[in-house]
């Protein structure tokens, strides 16, 4: 399946990939439906807030060191990203660049702008951005307000008529565009792919590494040196010049399939840079699958096998010890879909039983048309079947599930949800660092971290005695899927057997 890269505006994932944000059933059922194309998302008739794709798009773009961002919207849409100043400055410090704040300007849309339009103001803001900072590129992001009133960002950029000598790239990421906030990654990467990346002047031995914050840069650079390649991490800490040369690289990998699909596939399609489609490098099976597929892409198969043979035995005894201590623990996972699938596998390697998983959305396939490798692995015998919901971080459902299943530990990747699990009294581990459980050392560290968090549960236990949750007793007596509307061909009771009945 070919991607259409000629469009100005990339479609949301619901329309492009058939992604859904409402489902209740099991991992096997989900995999089965994804394969046969029979998956249909279910709506909820009550929702807590989720997240908008603008947050993901602006978060991705704002960590490019020498770019600037214009948000065409009210000030509120710009404030959150400015909170990443701390991350950007850390990136700059690590790379020896001058530390500066994110260059982020808001057009500060007001009521009268929503009536009379604001394209003059947008042009003035873009000019001002150039005059002030001389950035290497300017990304112009839309907002709900500018999109509802029909502001034509592309036309406004066109009217600047080349007066700004660097790329000025529109990013269509208004919040109402998609229920799947990961669509914002795609909007950002579409802008990079179409307006920043240039055709290759040569081929290099660089591997594009799509990740979030890049905490394991040093370790990965050392690892890649064994295979005679260098990683180029993006977008955090990258530069426009560096991004312009992504087409010259030997391969692309991504720490998260959800994050990397659009750019990885796009670079492969447009410039022939192979996108390594593997499980992600978390835990043992994932790490080895990733290394082997990377090795095949860069023609270093023997070197990879030698590395695996050398390194893997080193952690065996420590892993055994951890498994014996962690065995029998029951866990609930609430993460994005990529990390959910990978961490079901990783926890299995540590001997922990995953009794429920809630993924914030689900992509039945990626942009290449390929199935999700991690899901294939799990459904193909890599794990026991797991009760599974897809919910856009609907906290009331997660709380209900935790209260029903009473697990030993809850794993999330979004600190907001960890807070609430902790208030219920459960040991909670927020996997903030994308490189948690990365490779052989990572899984040992992760196991140790889990052991620590279940050994001393004082904070959660003391907290639960004192905190009052806002949820009604009535809600805790309902099935967690109570507000999930029944969808045609997907009976709501189908999942009941998966967690031992009791539904509807």
């Amino acid at each position, binding site marked *: 399946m070919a991607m259409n890269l000629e469009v100005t505006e990339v479609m949301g994932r619901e329309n492009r990939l058939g992604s859904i944000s409402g489902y209740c059933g099991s991992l096997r059922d989900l995999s089965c439906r994804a394969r046969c194309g029979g998956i249909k998302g279910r709506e909820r*008739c*009550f*929702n*807590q*807030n*989720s*997240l*908008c*794709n*603008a*947050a993901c798009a602006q978060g991705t773009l704002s960590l490019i060191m020498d770019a600037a961002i214009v948000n065409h*919207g*009210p*000030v*509120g*849409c*710009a*404030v*959150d990203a*400015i*909170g990443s*100043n701390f991350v950007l*400055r850390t990136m700059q410090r690590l790379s020896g660049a001058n530390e500066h*704040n*994110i*260059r982020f*300007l*808001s057009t*500060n*849309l*007001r*009521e009268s*702008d*929503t009536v009379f339009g604001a394209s003059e*103001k947008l042009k*003035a803001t873009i000019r001002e951005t150039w005059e*002030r900072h001389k950035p290497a590129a300017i990304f112009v992001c839309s*907002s*709900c*307000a500018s999109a*509802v009133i029909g502001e034509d960002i592309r036309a406004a950029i066109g009217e600047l008529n080349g007066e700004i000598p660097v790329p000025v790239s529109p990013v269509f990421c*208004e*919040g*109402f*565009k*998609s*229920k799947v906030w990961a669509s914002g990654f795609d909007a950002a990467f579409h802008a990079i792919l179409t307006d920043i990346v240039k055709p290759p002047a040569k081929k290099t031995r660089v591997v594009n590494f799509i990740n979030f914050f890049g905490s394991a840069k040093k370790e990965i650079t050392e690892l890649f040196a064994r295979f005679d390649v260098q990683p180029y991490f993006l977008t955090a800490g990258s530069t426009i010049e560096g991004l312009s040369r992504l087409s010259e690289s030997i391969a692309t990998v991504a720490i998260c399939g959800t994050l990397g699909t659009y750019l990885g596939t796009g670079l492969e399609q447009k410039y022939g840079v192979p996108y390594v489609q593997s499980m992600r490098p978390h835990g043992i099976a994932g790490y080895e699958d990733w290394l082997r597929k990377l090795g095949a892409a860069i023609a270093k198969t023997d070197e990879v096998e030698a590395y695996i043979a050398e390194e893997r035995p080193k952690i065996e005894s420590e892993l055994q010890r951890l498994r014996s201590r962690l065995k029998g623990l029951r866990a609930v996972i609430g993460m994005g879909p990529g990390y959910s699938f990978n961490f079901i596998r990783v926890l299995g390697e540590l001997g922990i039983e995953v009794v429920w998983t809630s993924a914030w959305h689900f992509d039945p396939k990626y942009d290449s048309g390929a199935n999700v490798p991690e899901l294939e692995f799990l459904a193909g015998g890599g794990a026991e079947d797991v009760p599974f919901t897809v919910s*856009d*971080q609907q*906290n*009331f459902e997660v709380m209900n599930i935790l209260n029903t299943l009473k697990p030993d530990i809850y794993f999330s990747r*979004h600190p*907001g*949800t960890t807070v*609430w699990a902790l208030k219920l009294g459960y040991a909670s581990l927020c996997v903030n660092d994308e490189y948690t459980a990365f490779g052989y050392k990572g899984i040992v560290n992760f196991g140790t971290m889990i052991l620590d968090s279940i050994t001393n549960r004082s904070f959660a236990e003391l907290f639960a005695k004192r905190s*009052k949750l*806002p949820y*009604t007793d*009535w*809600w805790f007596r309902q099935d967690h899927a109570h507000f999930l509307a029944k969808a045609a061909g997907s009976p709501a009771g189908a999942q009941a057997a998966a967690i031992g009945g009791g539904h509807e």
Partner: protein
Amino acid sequence: MSAITEAPRGNCALGGANAVLSAIDKVVPIYHAGPGCCMQTTAGEAGQAGGRSPFYVSGVSTPCSNMLEHEVVFGGADRLRETIEGTIEIIEAEAYFVLEGCTSGIIADDVKGIAKEFTDRKLPVYPVECPGFLGESCRGYEIAFKALLDNIVEPAEREADLVNLFGIMPYHDPFWEGNFEEMTRILERLGLRVNTFFTRRQGLADVRGSSAAALNIILSPWLLKDASEQYRKGFGVPSLRWPGVPIGATDTSAFLRAVAKELGLEEKAERLIAAEEDYVYGYLETAIGALTWKRFAVVADSSTAIGVTRFLANDYSFTPIATIVTDPVFRSEDKERITRQLTELEHAKPPAVVFETDGWKIARELESHPEITLLVGSTNDREYAMEKDIQCCVIAYPITDRLVFNRTYAGYRGSLTLVEDLYDNL
């Protein structure tokens, strides 16, 4: 045309309204907005105010109609109705406030009418017209106060020892809880009972009965002008405006005298002032010379800017060079009031006073004062301090590199903490 703003120092009106309402115990905001508005505003307001999240319902737990394309095209009324119904079933609260975002504001969903369907059923659901494009956090603060006055506050018998303490914005002032606590402590020592609405044990009952107060004390040079009018006209409660949260012995004692005069407590106030000043100077005495003289600039909201500038100049002998007020102050009489506070100093030459919200212009203004050796501002201002290699003390929104619980720079005790923090930052 409103000004282009680089690195805005405030959220939108929706963010401000949410910060206020979610700071009241057992009050639940319901967003009628896009799917990301709640996360953007909670992360952008409370999250950048010393890394906090509101305590009862906040962030991921806040109900929202998550308006998508379908609602934009066909209207979001039905979606909102079911969101409110679901909220009432799932979340216990004393009141639910429906907050309008930009999308519903532009397509003009009838939020008032829908809220009325619920109030007609005796359910406490109230509309708040606060789409982001109406302005900044400060505007949201005023809108939320109006919503409380219109819907919650009821007439009550006057209580001579009860005062309302207003003007400190939850979260937008990262030190709001500590500031309320210190000012409450001082007023309680004067024999008063203090409504803040927001500090933990208070809630809707205190809002409802706030009309019984003998006096509103508004600790801000410009906020709540309309609310003050509404309290006076509707409930006969007079207001005393004090231009900012007082910091240090000089301003706090002057503040206490003003309150005491309104309430006829002058004698008691003098005894209290003597004791509190003795406490402060008892400590200051033990660290004389710990800090050397500084030439300082302040970049902060008006209340903080006034408090810090006046304390450092009047009480601590530092030299004020420039004070940049980052609030979107728009009335000229308010600007004059603020400027007077910043320039009528007892012991120092007045600083340059500038009103500016744009991050880049703020840095250019600072550049015109190369003699500055101390910058008191927000996390955003660290950039400038690092570039010039001068001392930086982060005490104003946004604060993303400190965790703030109940720390305060207000009143008597807070001024000691400010001196401690200046020393820690040397």
